[in-house]
């Protein structure tokens, strides 16, 4: 029972990071049908920003601002320099454009900083443990879940209550109609990128507190998982992104923890098992858990 609770808490921790990233991907997909493979690079940007911040005497107190700020700026910048120019292209072209940015980002960090990992100190309290009813937790587990919950609540308020959020949702449903209603395309799209940057920045904070190091290709693994989570949930669906992230996180940790008990000798195949399950899921539900019907006229 103790093991189960710990596994679930671990799963929710990883899953909520996936969820934050997946939410950003889903948001951008909603407004411009782009599956943004450069989204993970925002984590890398945050990581290098904090590395340089530490190099110049920064401390963890200001870190979240540095990380989130740099991620927001980078996100808006990608839209300005690249995505704006292919806005009406096919989803395929959009996706490859983001892929190109991802490659470029890897190359630039390698050339201008180093291909090697750059580490910096972590906050002292991160791995402190405490016990509740005989089950021990890390402080970071609680921080992760609490921060994610707060961020998701903020997201919900922004998209339900503010004019910006409503415009974005309107644009996601039918961009042409939204434009006729007076929604300004550039502003909505820039705003969506900024918000996706914010979400990625929060995710980057959580990731970097656990493992404070910058590396050119660190964003890619997170990105792939986040894209999978977003598609599992149903691209364009905000609830779906969160559910997809949490499900993926739980699936990974539960498989890793319990597969060896279920099938002896299979522990080394846990990732393979997870991906087989994912593939099977996509065969059964190609549109994800929450299917989003786009305003596609025939």
């Amino acid at each position, binding site marked *: 029972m103790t093991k189960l609770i710990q596994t679930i808490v671990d799963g929710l921790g990883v899953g909520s990071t996936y969820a934050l990233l997946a939410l950003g991907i889903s948001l951008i997909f909603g407004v411009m049908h782009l599956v943004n493979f450069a989204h993970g690079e925002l984590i890398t940007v945050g990581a290098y920003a904090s590395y340089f911040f530490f190099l110049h005497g920064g401390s963890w107190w200001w870190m979240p601002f540095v990380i989130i700020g740099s991620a927001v700026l980078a996100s808006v910048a990608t839209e300005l320099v690249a995505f704006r120019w*292919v806005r009406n292209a096919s989803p395929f072209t959009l996706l490859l*454009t983001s892929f190109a940015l991802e490659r470029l980002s890897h190359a630039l960090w*390698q050339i201008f900083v180093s291909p090697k990992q750059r580490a910096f100190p972590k906050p002292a309290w991160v791995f402190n443990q405490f016990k509740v009813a005989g089950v021990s937790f890390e402080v970071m587990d609680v921080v992760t879940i609490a921060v994610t919950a707060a961020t998701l609540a903020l997201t919900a308020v922004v998209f339900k209550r503010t004019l910006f959020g409503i415009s974005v949702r309107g644009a996601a449903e039918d961009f042409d109609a939204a434009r006729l209603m007076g929604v300004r395309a550039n502003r909505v799209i820039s705003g969506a990128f900024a918000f996706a940057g914010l979400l990625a920045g929060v995710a980057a904070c959580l990731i970097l507190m656990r493992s404070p190091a910058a590396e050119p290709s660190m964003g890619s693994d997170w990105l792939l998982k986040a894209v999978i989570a977003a598609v599992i949930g149903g691209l364009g669906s905000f609830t779906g992104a969160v559910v997809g992230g949490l499900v993926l996180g739980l699936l990974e940790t539960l498989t890793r923890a319990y597969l060896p008990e279920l099938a002896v000798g299979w522990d080394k*195949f846990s990732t393979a098992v997870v991906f087989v399950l994912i*593939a099977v899921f*996509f065969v059964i539900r*190609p549109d994800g858990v929450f299917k989003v019907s786009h305003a596609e006229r*025939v």
Partner: protein
Amino acid sequence: MSGVNAGLLRLTRSTLASAALVAIVAALAMAYTSGGGASRDSLIAEMLSNFILVLGMQVFIGNTGVLSFGHMAFAQIAAYATAVVGIPLAAKAKALPDIPFGLDSVHYGPLGATVFAIVVTIIIGGIFGIAVSRASGLAPTMITLAALFVVEQLVKNWKELTRGAGGLSGIPRLEGNGWLWVGAFVALVVAHLFQETRIGRFAIATREDELAAPALGIRLFSARWAAWVVSMGLIALGGSLRAQSLGSVNPKQFTLDSGILILVMLVVGGMRCVSGAVLGTVLITAGNELFRQLGDPQRLDIERFPDLFLGGTMLLVMLLRPGGLLGDRDLAGWLRRRTYRRPPPTGEEPRAGSNTLVAAEIEVHFGGFVALDGAGVTVRPGEVVGLIGPNGAGKTTLFNVITGIVHEQGGRVTLGDRELTDAKPVDIARAGLARTFQNLRLFKNLSVRENVTLTELVAARHRSHRVRPDADTLLADAGLTEWADRQAGTLDYGNQRRLELARAAALAPDFLLLDEPTSGMSDQESQAMVESVRSVATRVGAGVLVIDHDLGFITRISDHIVVLNEGRILAEGTPAAVRANPLVAEAYLGSSA
């Protein structure tokens, strides 16, 4: 007999185009290697195996437009399959003492090992491809990504079969690059031929429009799956030859990154055509090498500059020429146009079909909103029926019910004695209903004539009992003769509408279903559209069901008019009778005319 001739012509064209492309690449390679050095030969070897892999991806990604990250997984399966049967028995017993499936006593020569690898990969990949081809949207891409990770972990951990992350060596190496050239040529011929086959054309149609293709009788699944299987064969050839050219195989050769390199080659040159794939491979291989030399091998620069080159090139191409450098300028396509001969006219007189289309008492609710409340329509053979009504009357919904896009909660649709209620769009099209779309869904990157000939391919198989006029006759009826070789997407609006009409008629349908064929047209154009619809419909002997807002157009073209209002039939009859009906004037004309 003409089928054999056509097949021979296709084979000749594909071989000619392939030979020309190989000759160009070989000339470049010779100029490069004559500078000397074994490293130059190994670069050519690398390029050639990439070449085959790029063509493998082109067959699936380029023709179906479905992005796959997983192709490298199958190249890896092929490479390992080559290794486990190609490594001599003594060396194998040492490296893989516990090898399963009785492979410890199996040893094939280079040709045998290659064939074995291709067969194994096609079987495994083919089964997997069922999942990929069934799904829609982004799901196939995600499934291929999953495949990549699954295969990667299997290879790294199934040590009895693969020896794990360290890989396998001791595969007998091929002498020189001769076989790689042969492989590249074979891959080129296969890729060219595939684009000429019926199923290959269908795959291209699904790429151009996922909704229009089924509405013209093309089954998404079979077209995609066929492309996938052929693509697996080429990928396996590439993977196997690479393993035999290097003499060793390990998981690092088949990562997501290496797959992306191949993908960049494909999209930079232009994924839609084979010539583009060739150009991309040559350019990226050369550029990569150039940037590698810029780096300082003492430091880790050697890795970083190629990434910069790849990312930069891909970004520029996507921003400036999203279709790739060549777009659709394909050598084989050019040959195809040059050798196009209009088939002799069949001389058959048009005759009307004998089936009546009946949609009766259709009910459709969207949530609480009742879109159709018992409306229906009957179209007799050769008859032109117009469907009008104010906005929200249910015209388009009725249309979508008949063509299988929306499912009705009540009522029946029949064509003659054939039940079409709940049938899929693709089967409805094959049964004899061909539709056009309100928002124009042409195969934009194909030529005007190809748009029509594609549908004729469906008609040849499923509508052979009907009179099937050739593409040029239909294009002439629609007034498009002078544009026949233009790219469909470059036509002006009115001509695009007429092309959709001709394309639908090429199915030799019992009925043409036209969804607002004059929307956005001037009076003059819509007058001309009346003529086009009449002559095209008469040519194939089809009846017509047409929705339009333009009352003038509807009354001129229709023999019979049905007026819908709030999901029910408000009135029907001859154009004159409907015009005179006071109810109609109140509901429809009163407000808008």
